[in-house]
């Protein structure tokens, strides 16, 4: 019956969120900073969770995220740009080679698949490597992909180093939320399945995991490809959000950004990644922007504030978190109604607490 209650809660929460989003969608808020942040935030949430699946749950330290996002973004863009718009986009390659376009849904799934396929190919050699070698190898892979896409010879397909645009994007804020929600939902289901447990085992102790009959190569590959698939989907979403995409900006800096989100949220916590994505995006693109502009209080000019200061403050905050709050916001805990309930019960006296203890309860 407890379960039923929680299910009810969850449904209510979901309904609440959807209602709120619809409200935003049909009000002046639609074009507000808030909705922008929400959109980018939810896309980053997906990217962070997909990275967390690999780094946090399987213990594979991969820095290839940007590369897979790039693949996803470009696949989506290349496949969905309407034919009539191609001559304008591929202006230096007289319209480019691809002379068809597929519906959005197909594009997004293709984005994921392409990323996953590349993940498989690169995974064959590099997944055998130990933690930091794997990191540097995947980082390198991302760089290679970027160079390839910018290569003029591939221009007729990738438009070389020129911007891709005019592909269908989403108008409703509900869209990114829906896609991310479904994707994250799938990742969570995977984590909680027997395979997810196997991933965790690998994270905990490869040798023991292998001794318990878990095929390392196979399961690492599964995790790597799944993570990349959703990185690709996330990349496609990011492209839609930006309404244009260009290989140049998918640098290792982007990977680091997402890695830091994962760390802040707590390596090994989906909830954490989601929360910190919204915080991170809001801080870096909205709340802290004021740090970048000079301010005057009366005639007194506030010191330090000028272009670039935001990023300094930002990186200091990140260092503080990394150094003193290694577990991040959520550690390895997940959101759970028990936790919430316990929290509230604790507000009212010891009796409730004792009762709760008997109930036990996982976080």
């Amino acid at each position, binding site marked *: 019956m407890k379960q039923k209650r929680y299910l009810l809660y969850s449904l209510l929460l979901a309904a609440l969120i959807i209602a709120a989003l619809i409200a935003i969608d049909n009000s002046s808020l639609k074009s507000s900073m808030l909705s922008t942040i929400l959109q980018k935030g939810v896309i980053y949430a997906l990217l962070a969770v997909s990275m967390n699946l690999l780094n946090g749950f399987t213990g594979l330290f991969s820095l290839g995220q940007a590369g897979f996002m790039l693949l996803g973004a470009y696949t989506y863009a290349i496949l969905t740009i309407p034919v009539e718009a191609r001559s304008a986009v591929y202006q230096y390659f007289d319209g480019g080679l691809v002379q068809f376009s597929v519906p959005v849904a197909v594009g997004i799934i293709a984005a994921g698949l392409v990323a996953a396929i590349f993940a498989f190919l690169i995974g064959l050699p590099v997944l055998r490597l130990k933690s930091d070698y794997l990191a540097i190898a995947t980082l390198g892979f991302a760089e290679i992909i970027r160079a390839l896409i910018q290569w003029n010879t591939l221009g007729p397909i990738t438009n070389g180093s020129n911007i891709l645009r005019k592909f269908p994007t989403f108008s409703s804020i509900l869209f990114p939320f829906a896609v991310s929600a479904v994707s994250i939902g799938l990742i969570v289901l995977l984590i909680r399945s027997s395979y997810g447990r196997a991933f965790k085992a690998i994270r905990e102790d490869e040798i023991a995991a292998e001794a318990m009959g878990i095929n390392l190569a196979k399961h690492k590959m599964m995790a790597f490809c799944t993570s990349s698939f959703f990185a690709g989907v996330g990349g496609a979403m*990011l492209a839609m959000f930006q309404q*244009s995409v260009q290989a140049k900006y998918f640098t290792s800096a982007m990977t680091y950004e997402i890695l830091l989100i994962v760390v802040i949220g707590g390596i090994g916590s989906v909830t954490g990644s989601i929360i910190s994505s919204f915080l991170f995006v809001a801080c870096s693109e909205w709340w802290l922007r004021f740090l970048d502009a000079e301010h005057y209080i009366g005639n007194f000019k506030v010191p330090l504030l000028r272009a670039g200061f935001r990023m300094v403050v930002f990186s200091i905050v990140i260092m503080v978190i990394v150094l003193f709050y290694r577990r991040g916001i959520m550690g390895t805990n997940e959101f759970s109604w028990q936790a919430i309930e316990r929290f509230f019960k604790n507000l009212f006296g010891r009796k409730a607490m004792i009762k709760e203890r008997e109930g036990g309860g996982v976080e």
Partner: protein
Amino acid sequence: MKRYIALFLACFMLVALVTGCSGSSSSSNSSVAPSSSSSSKVIKIGIFEPASGMNGAGGKQETLGIRYAHSVKPKVTIGGVEYTIELVEVDNQSDNSKAGSAAQQLVSEGVSVVLGSYGSGVSIAAGQIFADAKIPAIGASCTNPQVTEGNPYYFRICFLDPFQGTVMANFAYDMGLRKAAVLTEAGDDYSVGLGHYFAQAFEKLGGSVVNVQFQSGETDFSATMASLVSEGIDVLFAPSSIESAPLIIKQARNAGLTCPIMAGDTWENETIITNAGDAAYDVYLSAFFDPNDTSAAAKEFVEGFTEWLKADNTRLTNNGGSTGVAGVSALGYDAYMVALAAIEAAQSTDGTVIRDALVNLKYSGVTGECASFDENGDAAKDMAYIKTIDLETGTFKFLQTQTVS
């Protein structure tokens, strides 16, 4: 220890939240002296420029022009009521992935017109957002055709890459140069685009072209230059960011490449001269504007602007530490004035109305004919200023004006 940090963090977040939400608005009158608490109505003009990233330098110079223009004409009258113009600046970080939210911020600030951006990529990326929000945008120095193409809300007061490329091609060909190397930065629309048009025009004229691409952030051109030397080229056309320009110039000369080096408008930035030193001989570039222009408007602007620069040190540093008047500053100035003229013509603060006013606006500014836009929304600019670097004075010397044909 930990607890204190926690406390600090919490406070920090809180402050961020509070100031942040008001932050956007407080950032509006950023650097434009304390917000005059005059009771008159306010109309907002958005400045969509990079203050950081690889185009930060140019973006700052363009912004300076706009700020100066604002200091000249801080007010506008609409329907008899006097409006104070408020500049809302956001830094698009010369990064397409950040451009979107930067633009969105302007929209949410409720600006009536947007000016910018330096660097075409971000303008292309953000264009749709302005169009969706029905806010007209006026590009000052973004030269890539795609900025205005198929975007009824984007206008542009400078010439385009096809034009610029052709101009430089003609110029080079007229100098009797026949074999050109086109060195462009992978991932930079501006560089690749301009290079493309130059090559096109140069080949049409009967010259031959060697295309070379380098990856963004490249610092070592020695090998490339060596190969170009052995190719035996007559001219190197290297449209690129201010950052890589000095590297290219110096390493070209080190490798023994003595031929003329040419580029586009971005190179009109004095930091290039400072950084490249005396390697910067035989360098030619097309520019939007000539400070020694004899027209009254230009004179007035140059004098006024130089004074205004000297008045404040941060302004000078933003201008790369010199008092030289960059073309983009002039364009920034003009862009602001065009916006003003449009607002006055429209007699409204509403984006759509202003946009319609822009469509058939006539305005001639310090950089020449700035309005009378064609169907794409591009100003009818039919002439570029060719400049060279004067090593004695360490400034850009006006050489000649060049048109297509």
